[in-house]
């Protein structure tokens, strides 16, 4: 099971490489304003993700063209992708089970 914050950060990074604020904005938007990642929590999570090998920090010359050189950009690793996919399946399974029990699905 993937921590909720980690999951959302990795999902934000799944499409393209982003810096911290952009990740936070993406999460906020995607969760309909429900999950606001406060700064210390976000950057702590990014540090931990890098440490766990699920994300990596881009070197300065790898930054997307035209983007700020000052900010730190992050990219999801292959292992990170696998972890997100697995978590997505787990969530799907749980959601499916819930709907079956509620009688929404046969």
């Amino acid at each position, binding site marked *: 099971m993937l921590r909720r914050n980690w999951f959302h950060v990795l999902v934000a990074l799944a499409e393209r490489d982003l*810096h*911290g*604020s952009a990740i*936070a*904005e993406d999460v906020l938007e995607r969760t309909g304003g429900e999950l*606001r990642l*406060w*700064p*210390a*929590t*976000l*950057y*702590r999570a*990014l*540090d931990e993700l890098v440490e766990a090998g699920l994300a990596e920090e881009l070197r300065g010359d790898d930054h997307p063209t035209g983007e700020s050189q*000052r*900010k*730190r950009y992050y990219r999801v690793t292959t292992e990170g992708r696998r972890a997100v996919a697995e978590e997505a399946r787990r969530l799907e399974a749980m959601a499916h089970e819930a709907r079956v029990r509620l009688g929404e699905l046969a």
Partner: protein
Amino acid sequence: MSRPPLWFRVLLALLPEDFRRDHGEEMCELAALYAEGRSAPGRALVWARAGLDLLVVAARGRAGVLEGVGRDVRYGTRSLRREPGFALFAVGIVGLGMGASVTVFSVAQALLLRPLPFDEPERLVFVSNGDFGRGQALSAISVQSGQVESLRATATQFIDVGGYHLFDRRGDHTFHLSNGPVRVTRLRVTGNLFDVLGVEPVVGRLFAPEETLDDSPPVVLLTYPAWQRLFSGDRSVIGASVRLDDSSVTVIGVLPPSFDFTEIFLPGSRIDYVAPFPWGERSNRQGNTLAVIGRLSPGATVASAQAEAEAAVIPPADRINRYTPVVRPLRDHLSGGYRPTVLLLVASVALVVLMVCANLSNLLLARGAARKRELSIRAAIGAGRGRLVQQLLTESLILAACGAILGVLVAFNGTRLLASLDLRIPMLGHTRVDGTALGLAVAASAAVALLFGVAPALRGTDVDPNESLKEGARGSSEGPGQSTLRRALVVSQVAIACILLVASTLTARSLVHLLRTDLGYEPVGTIALRIDPSHRFDTEEARVQYLADMLSSTREAPGVEAAGLADMLPMAFNRRWQMRLLDRSDDPVYPFMRLISDGYVDAMGLELLEGRDLSAADVSGTPTVGLVNDVVAGLLWGEESPVGARVRTSGLELEVVGVVRSTRQRSVDQEPGAELFLPIRQVRDHGAIHLLVRGGGPPEDLVAAARAAARSVDADVPLDQAVSLGRVVDTSLAPKRFLVWLLGGFAAFALVLAALGIYAVVSYSVAQRRREIGIHIALGATNELVIRRLVRDSLTMTVLGLAVGLTLARLTAGTLQGFLFGVEATDLLTLVGVAAVLVAVAVAASWIPARRVLAVNPIEAATSARR
């Protein structure tokens, strides 16, 4: 973009250094992004939330450090629990000291510091009538409305000037609502007063200019509590017509809940609705009626406003009374008179806090010395000095935190008690412990803990493990420097206790003097019942008949010795009328005027010096008569008898028929003034009246008798506010009594602390000098000799403390004198008494621990070094 607040940047320092370096800037940017586009409070909330998040993350990252602190706290709690006496005492004195100071600070805040709840309150001024002295006496603050109109017409230094009518009284009117009549209290104001104060209605509107003239259709504003109480906050009452007394009025608006007019201007009373006091000649002719409030123009000063007010005074021919405007800031007028008292309390509580600090320091020093061995052992097994200091400081912080909690509890209850007391002090009811006071308490206790914990901690941990352990068998010892410091602390405590004792004894003696003061009347044994016949009688005959019937039926009631009527009770309202001799152009006098009936003189216990009392025959239609007091007689007639003389007052001509002895009817500590008494059966100028009944029985029986008698005459006349006159006088002394209790409490606390300080030093020195004492005794000194030496030692400290304290008391005598009545601040008896008490306490506090030498076995003590 919103910039990170300074405190947020400071918090960043809590994060591990590499984390801060890598992400600090971006964290600020993200929080700023969240804050963008919000209102100021919204932004503050976002930053606060981000700060909280930062704290949580930082705490998780530094769990190791927290663990160390946790260990210290656990260890400290354990070591304090081993000495519960010490811990409880330390927490107790810190708590009481802190509680007292926060309470006094909250009072100072309410009375002197917190802005008045009006728009730009610093620009509000009060214009009083300097011709009648200073202070709160109604005649000194009332102005005739023509003066206000004249000032308004020419004002450049004032944006506007308005006022409120001073002579509206409690429960004088009746709202006839669907569920029955309700007695209500009116306040009349000039139509512009709310604009002057900057008060907006919560519902409806304020008075329109055309509603503030004579004969304009009657409109009223409700106060917020009255709107809630009488109309359940129903908005449809706005614009509705309500029956008030015998006519109907339109409710046009509701004043905001923050507009607590009574608490600010008329503490101890209540206001239900506000009606306009019309501008114009009719109001002007009523004489001095208004308390005047102005709002200064931008750039105007009190001095420039004063000059303008003086220039606008109407010519003598149009004046009904003397008038010299005195402009001063509104807050000065409201609470300026209490400033010295509040400052006295602040100074006293500061002394108490100093004493608490000295005591705590003393305790911690003693404890540090006693724990030297324990610390040496910890140092010997490898604890660094920093570690030991941190440990000791944690202990003082635990003590301070517990003390602060107790202090906050004390302060909350103290302020609640204060605010609920009926002391008639403006804004005292608004006293509460707010964030500032709490912050101050927390900061102060932390400061006390650090300041008074650091020195003992540094001293206590200055241990050389080898040396300490080697001499360990002899127990710890302290150097001469430390002993001098402890003695100096005791001397200062005695000095402080001395000052506080002197101040509290003097104020207490003043109160005793006040209680024994001859008032000129006899309040005990008399009750007063308020009766409101004003709206029940159409004709003068009916009114006079009602008064006569009520008096005679009251006098027939069992237990009643005398009964009379008056329009005002002592110590409450007063009004002054101009009075001069007929056919003479001397300067007029301004006696306090009271409407009374026959029987009043006996019911009050006044002394008739010459002439006759008023009689039941002095009714309208007969020649007007009056009584004067001996002050008026002295002023107008000198040695001659005024009986039979004719005087003119407020449009009346009357004959003086009697002279009574003067009374202290404004307050117990004010000398009697001139007084004039007119027959209530001849002059109708009154609202509600008071039936005064004297009798031998308990006050409740008198009240019941008076009620029954009044009801038997007319069951529908409203009766209320039964009160014994003794109580009225008592209430007027409540603030003074309260000051005595507070100062007495501080002084008692100080005395206990000083005694404990002496006790601690002596018992400590007995413990320290066991060996020396043992040798003395072994060498032939008697126990008595040793005890006497210890007691003498403490007496030396006490005498030094007394010398300092009495000198300071002498130096501050001038300041203190202002609070005293009938006793000099340098009163020898008080000073000697205080000195004697302190010496006695010092002897007792040193003799008890000194007696422990009796338990010293000389051989054992003398040889203990070898064991």
